[in-house]
Every structure is written in C-alpha cells, then in structure tokens.
C-alpha cells in the first residue's frame, strides 16, 4: 500500500468547524424575507395603487398560475384585509379561469403568449418575474437589481384591461412602457 494512504487527519478539527458554523446559523429575523416571500408581499401591495373598473367583480382574489414558486408565502395572505375587502387566494387551472382574479402572478415565461391570449382584456393585474415579460404584455415585471427587487410597468397593457395605475407606483417603476 503506498505510503500516502495513511489514515486521515484527526476529525475533531472538522467537527469543531461544523460546531462553529452551526452556532452561527440564526433563525430568520423578522425583517428578512426570502425572495418569494418578498414577491408575495409585493402582490399584496400593488392593488393599493391600482383602480379596477367599476364593472369588475367584487373581492380581492390573488392568483398564481402553475408553476407557482410563491407557495405558502402566497397562502399566508389569505384573509388579510386589503382595499375594504379581504384577500382570497386561488390557483386557477388555466388562463380563462384566471379572468376571475384581480391579480395574477405568472412565474413561467414558456407559455406566456398563450396565457395572455387566454386572459384577453379581462381586468386582471398581471405580474411576472421573468425577464422581458413587461415587453411581452405583462403589466408589472419584477426584476432583480443585485439583492433588491424592482419592477417595470407596461402601462398600455394595463389600460387595455381598463386598469388605472397610480402615478405614485409609476414613479417607483424602473421603466414604464
């Protein structure tokens, strides 16, 4: 057996390192959110700056199309008060069913054209987080700027659906189409 097959070094060093690292893992602080928690919180905030046409359905139905990375973060908003009503959560099976939503989160750009065609001009605030979505007709595109989240707005898409977006939100947008 070649000489360099000597037993490995003492492993207490390894364990000490692990112990050290273990001590440093702290539970999530109240103010820190994961990316998708923050995105769910944004979905809850956007309606405050948007007016739906008077003819649209009552209620505040926040929806996400599969695949849905928001998961439990979105569910945690169920029953929260928003704009004189309470939030309901739904995961519509197809774009046509999503016409009943006030807000629709679209995570997947693969079938985007199909989804937007299915929604037609229904008064649904569409929000997506894949690059180029706003240019393709999604009303709000969440973008990453390093560790922060920002957004772009496609105002003409919102107008087509009869939605009015407040100037306050437009000012915060990185780009407005």
């Amino acid at each position: 057996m070649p000489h360099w097959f000597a037993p490995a070094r003492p492993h207490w060093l390894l364990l000490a390192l692990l112990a050290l690292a273990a001590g440093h893992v702290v539970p999530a602080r109240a103010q820190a959110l994961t990316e998708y928690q923050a995105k769910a919180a944004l979905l809850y905030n956007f309606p405050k700056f948007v007016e739906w046409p008077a003819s649209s359905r009552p209620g505040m139905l926040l929806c996400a199309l599969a695949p849905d990375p928001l998961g439990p973060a979105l569910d945690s908003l169920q029953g929260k008060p928003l704009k004189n009503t309470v939030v309901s959560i739904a995961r519509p099976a197809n774009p046509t069913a999503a016409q009943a939503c006030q807000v629709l989160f679209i995570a997947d750009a693969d079938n985007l054209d199909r989804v937007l065609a299915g929604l037609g001009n229904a008064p649904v605030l569409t929000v997506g987080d894949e690059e180029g979505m706003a240019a393709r007709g999604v009303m709000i595109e969440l973008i990453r700027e390093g560790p922060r989240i920002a957004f772009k707005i496609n105002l003409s898409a919102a107008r087509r659906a009869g939605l009015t977006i407040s100037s306050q939100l437009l000012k915060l947008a990185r780009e407005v189409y």
Partner: protein
Amino acid sequence: MERIRPRRAPYSASRRRFRPRLLPALLAALAWQAGPVAAAAAPPDLASFALEDLLRMEVYSASKFQQKASEAPSAVTVITAEEIKAYGHRTLADILRSIRGVYVSYDRNYSYVGVRGFGRPGDYNTRLLLLLDGYRLNDNVYDGALVGTDFILDVDLIERVEFVPGPGSAIYGNNALFGVINVITKQGRQLGGAEVSAELASHDTWKGRASYGRRFDNGLDLLLSVGRYDSQGQDLFFPEFNGTAVGLDHDRADNVYGKFAFGDFTLALAHADRKKGVPTASYGQDFNDPRANTVDRQSFFDLKYQRALSDQLELTGRAYYGLYHYTGDYIYSGVDNRDRTNGRWWGAEVKLLHTAFKGHKLVYGGEYQRDLQRDQANYDLDPYAAYLDDRRQSERWALYLQDEYSLSERTLLNAGLRFDRSAEGHNSVNPRLGLIHQWDDTTTWKILYGTAFRAPDAYELYYIAYGPPDQLANPNLRPEKIKTYELVLEKVIGSDIRLTASAYHYAIEDLIEQETLPSGDLQFNNIAQAEADGLEFEAERRWADGSQLRASYTWQLAQRQDGTWLDNSPRHLAKLNWSQPVLGKRWRSGLELQYIGSRRTSHPGISAGSSVVTNLTLTSQKLAPGLEVTAGVYNLFDQRYADPGSDQHSQAMLRQDGRTWRLKLTYRF
C-alpha cells in the same frame, strides 16, 4: 483517444479498506443540523410590509426551478450561479461533485463523472449527455463529454446547472444512459456591462477572463467572453515508476463564447482549446517524457428559433454546426506516436409544444444529424510511420413524442417515446413513464420507469492499434441498453425546507467492454451486464439572509452479473454544502464536505480508501463598489486520497491534490 490498452487484470475478491469512522462523524454532524432544519420558523406577516420597504430590502434569490422540478419526471438537482460562487467551484467537475449521488474522478488528464454507482474508469463520460442551453456537447467520435478545465464554457458564465439523473433517451436519445447535465448560460443583461476577472492559485496557476454583456434598447441581448487558464502544476512522484514526472502536470485552456439573442432568435458561438500534459505514462508510454500531452479543441455554433405559432402551439427550431479535434502525443521508446481525431457535424431539430387538448401537454419533434467527419488517425512523427487512417461519415435521426397528461388536479402522467436511428444503422426505441402525484400541498410522489441506450462510438467500432497485443476493430457492436425503475418522494416544509428521498434499480445489458480474444488480441464487445440499486436522501434549507444548507447521503451497490462489485463504485457518498453570511455580513462563507466510500480499482486486492474532502470559500461583494473577492482553500485538512486508475494506467490509483488555495478578484464596470 488512446493507444493499446494493457490487458485487464482478472477480477478477484477485493480487500476492501472501508473506514467507517468518518461516516458516523459526518452523519452526526448532519443530524445536529437536522434540528434547525426540521423546525420551521414562524412565517412573517407579509401583509405588514410597505411597498417602499420591500423595494429597499435585500433578498437572496431562491431557486424558482425547484418548483418546476417537483413536476419533472426525475429527482432533479439545480445548482445556481450564486452557489457556484459561494462554494468557489472552479470547473463543471467541481459543481457536479457537490450534487447528491455524483462523484468525479480525475486521472490528471481528464475528469470522469460517476452517477448512480456507475463510474467506469476510462469512460470519457459517454454514458452521460452534456447539454449547453440544449445543444449536445458530446462529440461524434468518442461521444465524450469534457467537464474539467477542458469544458467549453467558463464557469463564471453559468446561470445554473440542472442535473437530471436517470434515463433521458426518451427525449434526448443517445448517451442519456445515466443522466443528463444541462448547463444554462447567463444572459447579457445579467452582466449589465463589462467584467474582468483574475485569479491566482496554488501550483503556479492563474486565470483571466474579460466579459461584456448588455441588453440594448432595440431588444438585442449580447454576451461576449474570452478567458485563459494556465497552470504549471506539480512535479508528481509515482511509486510504480519509482520516479517523478517533472513539469508534466501543466494545463492550459482558452475559451471564447458569444451569445446574441434578438426577437425569436438566439445564436450561440463557442470555442475552447485545452492542452494538458500527461504525467502518468498512460497507455504504457515512456515515463516522464516532456512531450506527452493531449489537446482537445471544441467549437460550435447553434442557432435557435422559438415562436408561439398560436395560443396552443409553440415551435422551437434549431440548427447547429460542431467541430471536435483531438491530438495526443504518446511517447514509445523515444518516438512520438500521435493519435489524432477529427469530428465535424451539422444538424437540425424541430420541436412543437402543443396544448390544444384539455389536460394534455404534448411535445413532439424530430432531429437529424449529419456527421461530416468521424476520423481517427495514428502515426509516428519521426521516423514517420502511419498505423491508422480511418475516415467515416454517417447520419442519424430521431422522432419523439411526449405527453404530460393531468389525470386529476393532483396527478400527472408523463409518458414519452423516442425512436432513434444511430450512425451505424441501429434502431432504438425508448419509452419513459412517470406518474407524479401530489399527495398533499407539501408532498410529491414520483414513480418512474424508463429505458435508455448508448450507441457504440467510433473508437470502439473502428480504432485499430498494433501491439502486441493488437487492438481490433469491431463494426458489429450493438447499442448498450438500460432499464430503470425509481421511486422518488419530495417534501417541502414551510417555504424553505425541501426533503428528497429516492430508491432506484438500474439494469444495464450489452455493456461494451474490451475483452481479450483467444488469439491474445483485444477487442470491444457487448459482453457485460450490470445492475445497480441505490437509496438517496437529501435535505435542503434556505434562510432569508442567504444562508443555505444542503446535505445528502447516498447508498449504492453496483455489481456485474457475476456478483462482483464494479470498479470505482463507492457504496457510500455523503455531502454537505453550507453557506452563510459571516464577519459582520460583509463576507459569505461556503463550506463543502464530500465523503466518498472506498472504491475497487482494476488491480485485484487494491482499493482506493474512503476520504473526506473539505473546501472552504469566503466571498465578499461589499469591500468596494463593483469588486468581488473570493478566497478559497480546497482540501482544507490536506486529506490524502486517490481515485482509481483505469486500464490505460499501470497505477492502481492516482493521487489527488492536497491542500490548495485560490484567490479571485472580479471587477464590474
């Protein structure tokens, strides 16, 4: 890729040197962590955050694809750019090493990826399919996939690596026997300007890279990058030769990459050129001759078109042209014997995604590839003597259909079938069936069955070498076939903990191996069968502050039909990847532990002992605007370990690097 192989030593009972001490230690450490992993923190009240606060807040990106992965008919692993950076991965091989159930061995020339207990020494990753943004990187002569410093792309340009273990032939055809590695590149806009990177590392190693990426107002997304890696390497002592190979571990690699995305079109161009010294005197050549080296050169262009033809029909088309060139200088009695290979091919693919029928997602398409050159030559330089000049052309095509059918709200049936006509005219039909059931909101079951194949490559079919013993061609080889069964359980706890468990059974037949004929000559033949059984467990948790913990354990047993344990097939693998902010959050640490159990070598009675390799990396992006600093120590505890050699080596094992370091600076402007 090689000269005559020495005769394979007969199998005999191995004397395993299994050292179980490390495993309990590692498992104990993992169990300790299981505490915080199991207890989900109380979720924050998301309704209490104001818009401005949300926009100011720093969040770490989570893997969105994990969610998609839960619907995939496999236990997919996704490694993101952030993880690659945090753990200081230098090559694709480093990235793959961190994946559950995967191990990579290195013979100081090429890197060999082992999956699900199959890590056949000397197999140039022909039983894995390597894709770059969907383009097939396996060449058309050896069907090899290069994943070390010879990988075609700088790892800094990788957005994510998706590893799909299991048979992929029902979608991808040839070579997708044990798994598919899909490397996804960054987009130009993710760079948002120019970036230069310089690194220094142990053994006189440096690397430089300059990249530019941007999305222009007219919609053009552009990414350009050039890089060079150069390493002097070490002088390596080999007890088998009782000598030191001086200056023969040198490694130099250049790469160029460009990607242009405009409208529905994406054009990618890549070129890489790697020259590596061969210090091991492989294939029985002279020891310590400075001329021994291999050069691998790969280039391609790949044009992709993607467009929604209607609400329910999406078209993807692709046309590509690829080149592979290999030169090996092997020295015999002072004479430089050159092995040379030229591969050249073009191909096209059409794929349609069809959702007209309710509950069905149909994918169907076809592929055609024309091999313009599959040439192998072998000759002595001086005095000149030609031994082999084999020139081949061929074509291959395939048709496939896949349906993702929602049986109910919670149950998905994924069924696929693909027909392949290989270069030698063999027909292969490969089905795949996956039943994916969402037990409840957090639990997914997957029951998977699939087959896959690998067609014999041009080397196995046509390479001839004069011995003694002679290596004979065998144009009658048939494709290897594998049948696989797998059960996967995925569970999500809270929003940030993911657990995966998998059990599988693989049976491979008509395995192509080199055998010794009664005449004493060598020839490849469909002679072997093998089976593998395995269990895999993985736990992963991400914290809001960017901390991440991923721990996995794999038990696997891969055997031949006669019950002998396969070479280079560890029974146990355990991995830990742990990253978190440290030192007042200015830095981020990446700790990586990799345990590999003992492995048989091709030399009877000699096993490569178990080992734990620890890598520690510190990264900071907060020292100066635009500057990123990475400092890493690899094999921190200087663990002595070795990977099994293959038939081409007279060494049973090849020693791996001890403690090394790397310092890397990247500046963005």
